[in-house]
């Protein structure tokens, strides 16, 4: 399919600490993206409906388990232990995969991973691949890199298909097309399916069943015709070299079993030591993610099995900035993430901004701590991400591996570049607050001028407050002056 649309790969990240190359959309800072998003009533409606539905479902199935907090603590402990011994478990994994007939490749960054995958596909002589939904390959911009080498990657997850057909960008980790409603999806199918393969049936309605059937027919042809598949993985079990993918549709299962060659690109933090550890995550993930008690399609594979499934298996282990994150004692907890997206669904900011405002494949609260760590804070957008939160703490409460997202946000704020005017203001406030006498003097001055202070139009950056909110009246007397005058109200 030579006419496949391809997205601009985005500009290169600026000077920064993060050494990962995460696809960058080159967008303005978060506040501007969010301001545009909150004015989009259709987007607000779609997102509110979707996030509140999944939020409610998650709350009800999590509430069923009397030992949820113990499971959560276990998930956290397993991940922490594995991350502390990552070198050991990765080598064990490599050995087990190799013994099972697979090939392991190590990729330090996005470019290397893309190069490895493109080379592997080319070696098969094929020019098209089917893809299982995967965050890691989105992160490194694999589809675009393959397109540059003349290889077309076909997304087979329903939501990813919608995003690909619409030449769009995912806006959610679990449901990448959450920003689209079914009327929009119908139009995308009718307008673009033919460019990628079997066209949408004539007279397609926006009935969800009809849309799913159109996607099924379109994808089925693709599955049967394609000899190479690319996946990510939710987990890798070090003891046996087994990879695990959890999905809801079965398209992933098709990709993992039908093709002759399977290439999996997986972040190094996805390893768990044993199958017993996996048991914890198979309970945590579906309940946190889709709000289901059990995951519909859980596929596991260990190397290759003659006469069953792909004949060749390659595992590309991706660093792309992760070892730098691991070196940060506060920030490293972000590597515990199992990509469930519970934090997105509960976040009041994500609910109103949508995923695109975060300018990364990792949106929402987890994106706000992951993207700046992987990519650095060299662009206005990346530097604004740690501030894309009111620190309300809802994300931490729902996180199945107890990532203290507010803690990491504040930690990153300490490393983010600060505007000179803001720095000056903060310095002045700090000077003022470092002596009670100084504070009292300013309070008295404000009390004297209180009738001159406009309650609806403050100057300069403070207008950001008074554009939509009155300020309270300044009292004639501060509390401390009242206390002094009346000896605490006793006189």
């Amino acid at each position, binding site marked *: 399919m030579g006419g496949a649309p391809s997205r601009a790969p985005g500009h290169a990240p600026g000077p920064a600490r993060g050494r990962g190359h995460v696809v960058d959309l080159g967008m303005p800072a978060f506040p501007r993206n969010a301001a545009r998003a909150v004015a989009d009533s259709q987007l607000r409606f779609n997102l509110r409906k979707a996030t509140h539905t999944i939020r409610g479902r998650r709350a009800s199935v999590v509430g069923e388990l009397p030992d949820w907090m113990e499971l959560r603590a276990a998930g956290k402990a397993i991940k922490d232990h594995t991350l502390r011994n990552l070198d050991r478990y990765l080598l064990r994994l490599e050995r087990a995969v190799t013994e099972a007939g697979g090939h392991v490749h190590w990729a330090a960054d996005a470019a290397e991973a893309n190069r490895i995958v493109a080379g592997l596909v080319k070696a098969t002589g094929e020019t098209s691949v089917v893809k299982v939904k995967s965050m890691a390959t989105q992160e490194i911009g694999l589809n675009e890199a393959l397109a540059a080498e003349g290889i077309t990657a076909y997304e087979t997850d329903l939501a990813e298909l919608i995003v690909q057909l619409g030449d769009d960008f995912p806006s959610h980790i679990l449901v990448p097309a959450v920003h689209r409603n079914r009327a929009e999806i119908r139009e995308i199918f009718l307008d673009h399916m033919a460019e990628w393969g079997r066209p949408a049936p004539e007279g397609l309605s926006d009935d969800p069943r009809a849309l799913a059937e159109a996607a099924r027919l379109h994808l089925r042809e693709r599955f049967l015709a394609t000899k190479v598949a690319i996946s990510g993985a939710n987990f890798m079990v070090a003891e046996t070299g087994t990879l695990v993918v959890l999905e809801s549709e079965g398209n992933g299962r098709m990709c993992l079993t039908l093709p002759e060659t399977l290439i999996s690109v997986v972040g190094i933090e996805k390893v768990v030591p044993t199958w017993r550890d996996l048991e914890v995550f198979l309970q945590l993930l579906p309940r946190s993610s889709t709000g289901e008690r059990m995951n519909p399609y859980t596929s596991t594979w260990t190397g290759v099995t003659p006469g069953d499934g792909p004949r060749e298996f390659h595992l590309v282990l991706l660093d792309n900035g992760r070892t730098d994150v691991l070196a940060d004692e506060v920030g490293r907890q972000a590597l515990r993430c199992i990509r469930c997206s519970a934090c997105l669904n509960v976040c009041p900011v994500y609910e109103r901004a949508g995923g695109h405002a975060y300018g990364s494949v990792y949106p929402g609260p987890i994106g706000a701590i992951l993207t700046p760590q992987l990519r650095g804070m060299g662009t206005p957008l990346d530097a604004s991400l740690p501030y894309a939160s009111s620190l309300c703490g809802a994300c931490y409460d729902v996180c199945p591996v107890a990532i203290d997202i507010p803690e990491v946000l504040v930690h990153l704020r300490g490393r983010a570049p600060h505007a000179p005017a803001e720095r000056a203001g903060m310095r002045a406030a700090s000077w003022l607050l470092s002596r009670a006498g100084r504070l009292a003097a300013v309070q008295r001055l404000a009390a004297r001028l209180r009738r001159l202070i406009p309650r609806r139009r403050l100057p300069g950056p403070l207008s950001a*407050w008074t554009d939509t909110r009155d300020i*309270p009246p300044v009292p004639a007397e501060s509390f401390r002056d*009242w206390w002094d005058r009346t000896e605490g*109200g006793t006189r």
Partner: protein
Amino acid sequence: MRVALFITCVNDTLFPGTGKAVVSLLRRLGCDVEFPRAQTCCGQMHLNTGYRRDGVRLARRFVEVFAGYDAVVTPSGSCAAMVREQYPRLAHNPHFAAGASVAAGARRLVPTRAGREFAAAVDEVAPKVYDLSEFLVDVLEVVDVGAYFPHRVTYHPTCHSARGLRVGDRPLRLLRAVRGLELVELPGAEECCGFGGTFAVKNPAMSTAMGTDKVRNVLSTGAEVLCAADNSCLTHIGGMLARERGGVRVMHLAEILASTEGRS
């Protein structure tokens, strides 16, 4: 028992009425409070915005000023959470700039003397800091404070009191015991109002969008008064209500609890 009032810089400057209400309420319950005159600010704005050095200076002041008391009461869930939940992490973080240095030739960060002293002071003071509702229910062990407030009230559990301090239903229990008060449930109560400190001016459109939804929920209750245990959040929601002439006034929990018959 020596009890100190931590008024907070915001209440001290803009809401002295809340402070007076706390003093009169506690005195009515037989508890005298002291007001350490040197107090200013817990440093939350600096610490949460990424100005750790400035924030830590204020945190050091705080633990010095409030050392030696049996309890420190504050009418701000957010400031209480900063001191009780965040100070210990700050003080025990080995990378905390002002508290540790890499000793010559050592591979690990070792705390400096100043850092050790700060950590010790934090460990002494932080656990004794209570939000007003916690102090009333847990320390004074009182739920009915003898208040009278014949109005329809809805309560917004601010994020840092609900998810930071985990005050649970303590404020609601206190409000339910107030004579004449009709408590109406706030839809979507647990959702953030969008204040978030400097978030309100760094992300004004988002902050306003969140506040608009909160205001809509408040108006849907038909309440006359929106109550919360943090004037910062109330300044944001109240500022929007005032701009929209919403006809709902905002009141700190302390002011409702301090109201008695003839004085409401």
